[in-house]
């Protein structure tokens, strides 16, 4: 069953949001988001402030190449990390001041995601010599690399703490073979090998590895909801119809990994994932909207938004960034569309509310 209209989507959203306490809050009021974007003049990272029906840039830093994910550190500073080419890591503050640049070591590339425990950064990286995926273990203060651990796969993408195994990391090995010299031109997709791995965060030891049966599904973005991990997928099938119909969500319960089908084609491209109430939202920029799934991974609805991609979970709502607009989605109350003038958001943003 398709649910395309606003009313149906609201019902779906209400079904997966649990707590009503937030319902009276003004939608989007005083929200600030840290994001990466592109303007006519180049790439930037910065802060967007929701006010007057639009998301206005309140702080911005020019960066030399595209930034991908962002992280708020325990002390309140922010990290932005490059992807393709992945050469730099930037610490900055909410006033838009760059605090430290860290350049990647030779023959390594950042792949766009980082997490922190306050003392140590764990950074997804690639060995450009071999193509092997690495976790770069870095001092959180100096950003210097202390160690490298294999991710036991290629094309590592997002990594998160393991909600079910304290002290362990979960890493999504995207599994798409690439070469430095071929850029966006993919090669050897028959060699795709995507996997989810559990890694001991003190030793780097491999504690577990899981794969989907369909080897053309790339596991890329991760979000926990309780003890259930949602994984946004990106399909790499050679046949267009296979790609179009491919799932965009898989779930991992700590022991097993399974794809989740949807009742409508989503173009096989999940750009970001966030927990929503008891379920998940998966953005689908190629299908131009956001898919909602319940806690049992059942389909809950679809909200159209041109080039919907960046998702930010806030306590009482989720923010969805699109090409020209953003949505602040809440259950039971009307949501607002916010203009996003003059910038083109990258895949991810985070709420600073």
């Amino acid at each position, binding site marked *: 069953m398709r649910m395309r209209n606003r009313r149906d989507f609201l019902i779906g959203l209400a079904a997966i949001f649990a707590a009503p306490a937030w319902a009276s809050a003004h939608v989007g009021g005083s929200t600030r988001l840290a994001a990466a974007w*592109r303007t006519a003049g180049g790439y930037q990272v910065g802060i967007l402030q929701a006010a007057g029906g639009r998301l206005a840039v309140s702080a911005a830093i020019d960066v030399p190449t595209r930034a991908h994910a962002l992280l708020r550190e325990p002390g309140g500073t922010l990290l932005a990390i490059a992807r393709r080419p992945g*050469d730099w890591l930037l610490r900055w503050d909410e006033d838009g001041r760059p605090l430290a640049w860290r350049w990647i070591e030779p023959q390594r590339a950042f792949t766009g995601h980082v997490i922190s425990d306050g003392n140590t950064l764990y950074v997804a990286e690639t060995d450009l010599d071999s193509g092997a995926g690495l976790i770069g273990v870095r001092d959180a203060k100096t950003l210097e690399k202390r160690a490298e651990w294999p991710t036991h796969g290629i094309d590592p993408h997002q990594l998160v703490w393991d909600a079910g195994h304290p002290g362990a990391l979960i890493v999504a090995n995207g599994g798409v073979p*690439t*070469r430095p*010299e*071929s*850029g*966006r031109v993919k090669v050897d997709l028959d060699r795709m090998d995507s996997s989810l791995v559990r890694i001991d965060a003190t030793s780097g030891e491999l504690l577990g590895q899981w794969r989907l049966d369909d080897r053309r599904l790339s596991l890329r973005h991760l979000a926990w909801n309780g003890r259930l991990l949602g994984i946004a997928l*990106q399909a790499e099938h050679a046949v267009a119809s296979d790609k179009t119909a491919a799932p965009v969500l898989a779930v991992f319960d700590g022991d097993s990994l399974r794809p989740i089908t949807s009742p409508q084609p989503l173009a096989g491209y999940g750009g970001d994932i966030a927990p929503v109430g008891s379920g998940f939202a998966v953005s689908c*920029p190629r299908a131009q909207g956001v898919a909602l799934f319940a806690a049992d991974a059942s389909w809950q609805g679809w909200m159209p938004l041109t080039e919907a991609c960046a998702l930010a979970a806030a306590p009482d709502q989720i923010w969805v960034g699109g090409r020209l607009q953003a949505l602040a989605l809440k259950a039971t109350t009307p949501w607002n569309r916010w203009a996003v003038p003059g910038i083109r958001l990258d895949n991810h943003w985070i709420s600073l509310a």
Partner: protein
Amino acid sequence: MRRIACNTTLGACLFSMVGLAGAANLSADLHRAWSVPRAAEFADASARLTPAIAALCAASEEAESAMRIARRQWLDVLTPWERLSAVAIGPVLERRAQRQIDFMPTRPRLIEKAIQDEPTDAAAMELVGTPAKGLPALEWLLWVKPIQPDSKACRYALQVADEIAREAKALAAAPVVASDDATLIGELVNQWVGGLERLRWANMEMPARIALTNARPAEFPRAASGAAAAGWVAQWRSLRELATDTSIPVSLDALLRQRGADSTAEALAQAVRRADAAMHDLDTVDLPRLLEAAQLLAALKRLVEEQVAPALGVNIGFSDADGD
């Protein structure tokens, strides 16, 4: 599948008979007008490198002069290589030649180890890793730790030069896998953008920014030989020609005009002219001027991504960025 076989010495191509039902015209045009002559130039220059190194290794009283000639020959190989590899298409991409010939940064420790292993032929060189071979390794052997006549290091340098010449010859002789027009245009646009970004970011702006943020001299590729700026010029020349040179039937300009996208072609030409003016007489010292040139290259890249690629039916826009 249709293959285009090329004669190394003459730089001429013979077209084999298994074709793509007439769909390989652009592919043949591109390789005839661009890849084949560039590969032939590189092969010709590389063939002169081995004798120059051999003369250095055999020199007794004229070692300084032999070193000057060997260095000159290395520089003479560099330019056609930069020209050929600036946009990695055809055999350069298929054979992973950039990795084979131009692995950067070179690894001195591995070079030292390879010298001690004393490889004496092609088979033995196969066992030496790419980080210890290619033009950057030879640059290190000629400038950073200059080889002496009649030494293990000199004999290793000779093997490195020999291997470069072999790969250059193979590139010039490689059959070109013909592809349909859409695939060819997609590869050309993507690899052109990739080549521009390699020049703009990896070779120019990133070393400059690292130097500025770390308050230390910039470490550009080819710095040891003093050929950084020459490398930028050669790469830019290829990028410029593949964008707008009217003598190349498969330039981006020609492809746009064939599709009636004249205004986009004009915008491309203007952006190329602006970048071209900024790329003249760059050096490795005036970093602000270098960063200004890099900004114009970045603007050119955006124009190709946002206007040229869509006009040619090539998807490289943000929401088509696979794997992000």
